[in-house]
């Protein structure tokens, strides 16, 4: 699933490790989500959205609207 995680992270000057620490997951997980190789669960997606203070749909692109 496409997402703006890398952009949002860069805006805050956070490394993948910084974001991983804040989300309490591994850096490998952040990398997998950022590159679209792994779609996070709803609880983790909410956690990401709350961390950045924006709605889930402003971070993740709905698969139906990707093309």
């Amino acid at each position, binding site marked *: 699933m496409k997402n703006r995680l890398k952009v949002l992270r860069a805006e805050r000057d956070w490394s993948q490790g910084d974001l991983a620490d804040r989300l309490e*997951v591994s850096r490998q997980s952040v990398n*997998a989500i950022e*590159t679209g*190789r792994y779609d*996070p*669960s709803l609880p983790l997606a909410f956690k990401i959205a709350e961390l950045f203070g924006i709605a889930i749909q402003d971070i993740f692109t709905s698969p139906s609207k990707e093309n």
Partner: protein
Amino acid sequence: MAFTRAEKRYNVRVLWLSLGYVVLLLGSIYYLKHYAAHDEIDWLVAILPALPLVGLFAALGRYFVEETDEYRRMLTIRQALVATGFTLSVGTIYGFLESAGLVGHVESFYIALLWFFGLGVGNCFNKLIDRGGEA
């Protein structure tokens, strides 16, 4: 790649269970070779080495429960599924070859060892799927 807390706990359990397996296997072989009395004690001693192997399966199940990093948990679940598919496939193919009299009989406990080998295959499968993903 740093281990998660759940992975560290799993690794410690695997280490102790593996050590227990070696000790119980050697002890069991020695007992059955020198003191076998063809009684119920023999049954108990024969089963003992299997218990740490069963413990290894339980340790993996406990890891799935304890792991809070959902991506890492998904990777390990996929690894275990590949191991299970690999083991069932090899076991089935070998069974048919054995029925046809083309290969010799293999003790059934090797299926557990084959599954652990399958975990290695599953790990390769994970790396193949995720190749190029690390930034």
